């Protein structure tokens, strides 16, 4: 598996930040409330939620326990576009099941995903 680009890492922390924000809003807490509960500054919570900060694992654990959620709820289960931009060989035996138009469709979609990354 190739190393992620820094943009992919940014996207990862962005998604983690969004999850923190949603979970905080669902718990009906302001950034200030969460700051008081966790001892983190309000601005570091704001930075983390906006994905501007590559948050450390123990900070997420503190936040999760204060919000009464599982730590795993804050993690994104995927690392987008790590394994290349078209179907790889692992699927090749599998691919015989599909028609040519179906495969064109999938590969076109994966190409779109690769080009939107560069924006």
């Amino acid at each position, binding site marked *: 598996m190739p190393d992620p680009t820094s943009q992919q890492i940014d996207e990862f922390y962005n998604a983690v930040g*969004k999850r923190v924000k949603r979970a905080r809003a*669902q718990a009906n807490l302001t950034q200030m409330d969460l700051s008081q509960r966790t001892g983190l500054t309000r601005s570091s919570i704001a930075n983390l939620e906006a994905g501007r900060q590559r948050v450390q694992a123990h900070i997420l654990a503190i936040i999760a326990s204060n919000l009464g959620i599982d730590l795993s709820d804050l993690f994104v289960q995927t690392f987008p576009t790590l394994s290349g931009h078209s179907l790889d060989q692992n*699927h090749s035996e599998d691919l015989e099941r599909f028609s040519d138009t*179906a495969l064109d*469709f*999938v590969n076109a*979609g994966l190409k*779109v995903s690769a080009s939107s990354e560069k924006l």
Partner: protein
Amino acid sequence: MNVRSDVEQRAQAYLKRWGIVEPPVDVTELVRLEGIELVFSRSKGMESGFALSEGFRRVIGVNSLEAPRRQRFTIGHELGHLDMHNERGLTVDQSVRVFKRDEVSSMASDSQEIEANAFAAALLMPQSFLHQIVPEVLKTVSGGRDQLISALAKRFDVSVQAMGYRLINLGMLSP
């Protein structure tokens, strides 16, 4: 019966996790929050969408030539595959399916398609939302059942057909 309520609960878990409490359900945002890549591409064939699960990577593809409300349903359907049928790797869905009765695996595949459709319906048209909104809409709609279905379809941003099936499946409408 149990299978169906399991699918309903799986769909509800997503709404709960992201605090979605009213229609229309923003499936695009929901899928992105889940860390799933969402891509749109054109297909000249009958393909409506695909779901790819490869290691830690999950991708949903949507045929952008289809109507927007169909695309929303497709996203829900593909999320259902990723949630429930993770072992499949790649799934490509056709908007019209030809049933190949001679294939040993076709029965399993058929039931997975039915499950994915049920998941999409439960995600886009949750029973609790409908119970709340149907009485509201009934007050404002003049006309018969077609007008009701169409007003609800608009409110939930789904096709009239999808809404019709959902109401019948929930026993809220006679077939």
